[in-house]
């Protein structure tokens, strides 16, 4: 800064709020004795129009180039005074505010002299800092009014539809060969008279028929560059080997020699290497699983419309978006082999598998048959993988399993009234709308509820499964000779997360899900601007909650797209390349991944991405050489403020 600082100090009375405690005259007189201060004025309400005019006049008349306003909290009127300063012809960041209302007069009204002394100290410190302030320009970024959405489950679909209906372009990317996600594999839903695939199907139909949506199914985002307002994604389309000419005649399924467990039936039945994921799959086109296909060519021979091309290659596509929604869902908890007999008997199954058995479109046509027979005694073990029940279990509750299990229990009771059902739980959390009624109805149907503290054990015998549990209510050991055991498995963070996180910079919570900006106040935003989180990707959720999150994230993204330009406060980190040794200490300090090393004249220096830096200053404090500084909070500015703590150093 080449010019001599000329500081004006403006002290507000705020009616009696400040003046009632603080001796403003004394403060004004004192301010005039401070270095660089050329004018000091007081006014009854500095934020008012005449108050602001007072500041502007003083700037002109006294040639001020720095302004200190001692008044209420900056959280109230900093924008007001910044504007005033700007209207006076100065850069809006040449203003320093001193909080002498909330943080002085209001809290020391019983010690007027001390409050006045404190005020003088604070103004002295502010003047010292203000003298070193530099003009700064807001950062401006244009916004691309388009969204990239990862994940074609209910949350992603809802977000896509909401945004598309508002007129924004949507790139919906789904890694599986079909849209629909987990909800599409549920049987009849609770409280809603529809199957999962039906309900999701209606959503899919609306989404894909909206001209604003481009659905990239069987695709993955492999690269994501840029930041809020402008993201550039590389979408890799994986070949299906079958094109839209497919009529789903099913001839190819008949002749394919390969049989593998069907992941869409959670392994309880098989599919071929060429297959349709499920009846309502979208797109309604067969797909070849390249990992199991032997390329024997039998399917090609029988395909009348010649829709199969075994040599189809994938391709890459670029998509531009202003914001990204991550809706990549969850993975069902997979019990380790032997946990509750899982993997040791075909009669120990998960709730997801049970859903498939009870679905009329499932592998048994809706019949509850395991190894050819219907179980007479069924034990449901709840909280599997949740509530810290077993060594591998998560500590959290997975939310949706109680209602989900009870829904299935009632379905079984409807179809097979004689089946005896035991529900063994650590806790029963039917919290959602209508869910408590499921529990009541189950109890009315004489389903037995047994609470445990220590988890039950399942002993696989030749003719049945011995379930032993210590009933915590009765304080008695029980032995249940069950014909089948259903494990209500919880929700684990999606197995695709490491892949997602290698592409998009989002942090994880302690439980391994993606972490939101603020659990309560900003639940659908990632800490980094422009990235939104919808559905079970952040924590266990039921369908209602996931859909809500989808809509919420769409609203957030829409708010972003509605702006033509975003302005960001410029108090960001800056590197002085002449001093930076490229030591890289700063890089790990940034939670937003805003810093990287770049080549400069055969050496390396740090580089801050202005769009990603959120101005926290963590890198600045860590920078061992002082090369990294924070605009508006530079070391010399902070040190000057500190040095003015007492009078003797203030001069």
């Amino acid at each position: 800064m080449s010019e001599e600082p000329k500081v004006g100090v403006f002290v507000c009375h705020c009616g009696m709020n400040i003046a009632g405690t603080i001796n403003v005259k004394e403060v004004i007189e004192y301010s005039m004795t401070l270095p660089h201060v050329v004018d000091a004025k007081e006014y009854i309400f500095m934020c008012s129009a005449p108050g602001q005019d007072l500041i502007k006049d003083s700037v002109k008349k006294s040639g001020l180039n720095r302004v200190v306003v001692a008044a209420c909290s900056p959280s109230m009127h900093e924008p007001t005074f910044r504007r005033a300063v700007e209207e006076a012809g100065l850069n809006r960041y040449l203003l320093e505010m001193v909080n002498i209302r909330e943080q002085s007069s209001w809290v020391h009204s019983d010690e007027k002299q001390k409050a006045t002394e404190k005020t003088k100290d604070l103004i002295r410190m502010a003047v010292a800092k203000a003298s070193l302030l530099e003009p700064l320009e807001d950062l401006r970024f244009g916004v691309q009014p388009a969204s990239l959405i990862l994940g074609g489950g209910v949350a992603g679909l809802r977000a896509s539809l909401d945004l598309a209906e508002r007129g924004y372009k949507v790139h919906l990317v789904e890694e599986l060969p079909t849209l629909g996600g987990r909800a599409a594999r549920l049987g009849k839903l609770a409280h809603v008279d529809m199957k999962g695939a039906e309900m999701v199907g209606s959503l899919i139909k609306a989404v894909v028929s909206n001209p604003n949506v481009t659905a990239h199914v069987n695709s993955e985002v492999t690269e994501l560059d840029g930041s809020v307002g402008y993201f550039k994604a590389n979408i890799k389309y994986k070949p299906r080997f079958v094109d839209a000419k497919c009529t789903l005649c099913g001839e190819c399924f008949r002749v394919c020699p390969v049989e593998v467990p069907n992941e869409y039936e959670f392994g309880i039945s098989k599919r071929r290497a060429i297959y349709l994921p499920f009846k309502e799959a979208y797109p309604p086109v067969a797909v070849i699983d390249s990992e199991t296909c032997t390329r024997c060519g039998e399917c090609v021979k029988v395909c009348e419309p010649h829709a199969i091309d075994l040599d189809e290659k994938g391709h890459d596509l670029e998509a531009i978006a202003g914001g990204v929604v991550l809706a990549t869902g969850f993975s069902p908890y997979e019990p380790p082999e032997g946990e509750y007999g899982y993997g040791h008997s075909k009669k120990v199954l998960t709730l997801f598998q049970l859903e498939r058995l009870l679905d009329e479109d499932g592998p048994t046509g809706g019949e509850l048959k395991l190894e050819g027979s219907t179980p007479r005694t069924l034990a449901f073990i709840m909280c599997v993988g949740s509530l810290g029940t077993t060594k591998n279990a998560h500590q959290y509750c997975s939310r949706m399993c109680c209602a989900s299990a009870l829904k299935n229990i009632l379905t079984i009771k409807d179809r097979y009234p004689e089946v005896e059902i035991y529900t063994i739980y650590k806790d029963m959390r039917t919290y959602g709308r209508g869910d408590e009624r499921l529990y009541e109805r189950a109890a009315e149907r004489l389903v037995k509820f047994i609470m445990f503290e220590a988890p039950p054990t399942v002993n696989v015998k030749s003719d049945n499964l011995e379930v032993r549990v210590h009933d915590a209510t009765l304080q008695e050991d029980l032995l249940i000779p069950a014909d089948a055991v259903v494990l209500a498995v919880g929700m684990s963070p999606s197995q695709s997360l490491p892949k997602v996180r290698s592409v998009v910079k989002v942090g994880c919570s302690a439980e391994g899900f993606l972490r939101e900006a603020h659990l309560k106040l900003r639940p659908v935003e990632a800490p980094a601007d422009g990235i939104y989180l919808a559905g079970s990707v952040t924590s266990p959720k039921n369908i209602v909650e996931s859909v809500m999150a989808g809509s919420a994230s769409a609203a957030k993204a829409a708010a972003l797209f509605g702006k033509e330009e975003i302005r960001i406060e410029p108090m960001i980190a800056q590197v002085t390349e002449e001093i930076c040794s490229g030591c890289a200490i700063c890089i790990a300090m940034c939670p937003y991944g805003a810093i990287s090393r770049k080549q400069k004249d055969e050496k390396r220096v740090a580089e801050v991405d202005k769009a990603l830096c959120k101005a926290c200053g963590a890198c600045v404090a860590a920078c061992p050489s002082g090369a990294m500084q924070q605009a508006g909070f530079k070391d010399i500015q902070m040190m000057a403020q500190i040095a003015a703590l007492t009078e003797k150093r203030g001069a």
Partner: protein
Amino acid sequence: MDKPKIAMYWCASCGGCEEATVDIAERVLDLVNLVDIVLWPVALDFKEEDIEKLPDGSITASLINGGVRVSDHEHMVKLLRKKSKIIVAYGACSAWGGIPSLSNLYSEGEFTSRAYHEVPTVDNPRGVVPQKSVTIDGVELKLPEILPRLLPIDRVIDVDYYVPGCPPTADVTWKAVTTLLSGKVPPKGSVIGASEKALCDECPLNETKPDKVLVQDLKRPHEVIPDGEKCLLTQGLLCMGPATRGGCTALCVKARMPCTGCFGPLDRVTDYGAKAASFIASIVDFQDEESIGKVIDKLPDPVGTFYRYTLGASTLGGRIRRNKA
């Protein structure tokens, strides 16, 4: 025209800086041809009176190494300031106090007692300690006063330039001397002869760092045989490289010893020890008090580690006086 006069003086010094000066080897012959040395106690027999007789400001440059520990040092540096145009603080001790300034953690009584009584190899059955004065045959002989703290010379006199290092390397010394004699001198108060950037800029291992430099353990040099192909900091060693001015060509690191910080801070840093502690603490990759504490507790002497060469110039200067209450 007379050759420019040069003085070289040592205060509380180990003698390493004198050796460093001589280390410029054959170049010293060029140097002595260019200048007129008027004071160099280690090598030449000039006395204080010779300096007093010189007109004020007639010495072109005085290179002072060693910190101000006793009243005699204070007197000499003030005298040299009066008689010199330029004062150069040569070496870590005169610039920042150096290793001897770690004595600022102790009172005179404590370190005298340590030196003369407590050190296991000292044999002092009569408990002799140095006296400040003694009278022999009616003549009083006095030793200089020990000052309350060891000070960098710029706390006593105005200093024009600083040459960093413990000691400065031969190349840094030569570069500093030729800069001074060239007439194209940088602004007053500058560090000369060395780099404007931290050591990592010239360290061959900087390239090997991963994107994120984080450690889960801090190791002392005797605890690990370092891999010479990987940044020592990433191996858990306390390498001060990132916080230390470069210019030495990373000699220690090339010998697989982590940098200890002898070239001192970069220009924008006001307290080397606090800054070094800040960056080391920052890269300890734990989030809970207990784990953080465990790692930090592994450092037996953080003040000695982070302020090894700079305690004298630090913000607090050393241990503050005990509370009398």
